């Protein structure tokens, strides 16, 4: 039960990563590797600020700003300096590794004795229920774990609604269309370069918040924690798309959150069943590869071209 609740909580926290990856990979078709660095950046900024005495909510907000900055850096390197998309992300990600070390001052910042959003949620939960454990369908479950789960659910829901609403506004639809057909948007008076800057800022801001929350939940920030995040987020988005079976925005956003949770559960089950934790990233990469290649093979076997978006 503890394993299950833990997996759900981390899945919900990482759904913000999935939302960020959705914006860069799906809305802009921009393979933004920066996320590997910006998730750690978010964790580093939040952890250092919390240790320094800042309110955890302020520290999390600061993580968003820092992540957005990383996104701006990548998009500027691409749009203003004309560097290839993938390479701009790699450059910023690499630079972030040093920056993260500077932000933390060392490779690892523990938060176990600090007041974090997670510990605050636990306090609220204990205050409300007045008990240390709650009986759920015959399982005695710690109130602390349940409160953090509930808190993560609230955050994930709020962020999905925010992202969905944003893509319903004038600027949000313009952003979506810039990714879909940039030639058209230039003809309609939109500076598509600036749209990309804004989009990657938003994307990496969300990713950094995900890192900040993860650090507060697991009780530490570590300079290595971001490795593989992009693939992880992409796996969530792909599972989400398979779950909802459409490219409709509202459903895809919901799907990304569900995909993140489901993927985390799958990982928990696999580890429980004896998967060597060292093989986890290999398995994740293999899964994403399969998910990317499989639909094309199925379509070819069925004798028709795979359904792809119309490209200009």
């Amino acid at each position: 039960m503890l394993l299950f609740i833990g997996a759900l909580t981390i899945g919900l926290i990482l759904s913000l990563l999935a939302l960020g990856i959705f914006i860069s990979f799906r809305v802009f078709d921009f393979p933004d590797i920066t996320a590997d660095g910006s998730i750690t950046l978010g964790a580093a900024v939040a952890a250092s600020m919390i240790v320094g005495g800042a309110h955890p909510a302020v520290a999390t907000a600061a993580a968003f700003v820092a992540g957005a900055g990383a996104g701006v850096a990548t998009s500027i390197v691409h749009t203003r300096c004309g560097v290839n998309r993938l390479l701009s992300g790699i450059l910023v990600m690499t630079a972030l590794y040093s920056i993260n070390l500077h932000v933390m001052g060392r490779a690892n910042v523990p938060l176990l004795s600090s007041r974090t959003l997670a510990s605050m949620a636990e306090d609220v939960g204990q205050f409300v229920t007045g008990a240390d454990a709650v009986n759920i369908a015959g399982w005695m479950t710690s109130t602390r774990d349940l409160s953090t789960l509930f808190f993560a659910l609230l955050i994930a829901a709020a962020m999905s609604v925010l992202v969905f609403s944003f893509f319903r506004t004038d600027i949000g639809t313009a952003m979506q269309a810039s990714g879909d057909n940039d030639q058209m948007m230039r003809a309609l008076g939109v500076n598509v370069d600036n749209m990309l800057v804004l989009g990657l800022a938003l994307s990496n801001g969300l990713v950094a918040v995900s890192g900040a929350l993860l650090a507060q939940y697991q009780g530490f920030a570590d300079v290595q924690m971001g490795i593989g995040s992009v693939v992880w987020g992409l796996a969530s988005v792909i599972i989400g798309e398979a779950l909802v079976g459409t490219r409709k925005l509202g459903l895809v956003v919901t799907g990304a959150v569900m995909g993140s949770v489901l993927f985390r559960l799958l990982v928990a089950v696999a580890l429980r069943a004896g998967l060597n934790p060292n093989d986890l990233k290999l398995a994740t990469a293999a899964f994403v590869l399969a998910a990317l290649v499989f639909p094309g093979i199925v379509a070819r076997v069925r004798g028709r071209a795979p359904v792809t978006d119309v490209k200009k």
Partner: protein
Amino acid sequence: MLTIEGVKKTFHPGTPHEVRALDGVSLTIEPGSFVVVIGTNGSGKSTLLSAVAGSIPVDEGRIVVDGVNVTKWPDHRRAKLVGRVFQNPFAGTAPSMTVAENLSLAAKRGRARGLGWALNAGVKREIRERISRLGMQLEDRIDNPIGTLSGGQRQALTLLMASWSKPRLLLLDEHTAALDPKSADQVIRLSEEIVKRDRLTTMMVTHSMQQAAKLGDRLVMMHRGVAIHDFSGAEKARLRPQDLLARFEEIRRADLLDQSAAAMLSRTYV
């Protein structure tokens, strides 16, 4: 409304692939007039349109739209003044977004976009109304992704989008060349209607002699990067496709003569 002065554009300068696409074009278009541009392949007619739209920078010359010198403006900035329909029917719309979303994007052309809802009730009502005026039975499909519509339907909607907020200048870039004859007819009819109704200053590039003869109140024929003929008024009204073909034949003969003269000169002197 549009003044083009001595505009030059050379692609791949200084290489064996050098192409002098525009060789000092000058053209003034009065407000409210509908100018058709025709020309042989490689005559520079599409380049001229792209230069006006701002999607390619020019080497020399000036482009003035509605009294504003826009020569140095990027295309997204010119969109404030200029509406555009592309040759490729898929180029003017965002395929994964709905018909209504696409049109709401066009309704904000060249204006600041903020955090207001893109599709509020008022906008949606107006979109439905304007689409129903097209008479293509598309008003019940405004919540479908625009990518599910045919090329002709998408081109008609692109036309509606380009003309939505009455641009100072409407550019039509061989916008029926990629359509089947029936859709092409329909889109041409709509273009005529919209241009006439909103009295839009229009510049249209076409391959079709029929369209060139029938549409517009002025016709410019381009060859080798310059405007070689310019018909307007009664002279334009009298033009028939055969006359245009005859002009093209003249150009071809002149070219042949040039070539044979060059060949003769080289035989004699080289």
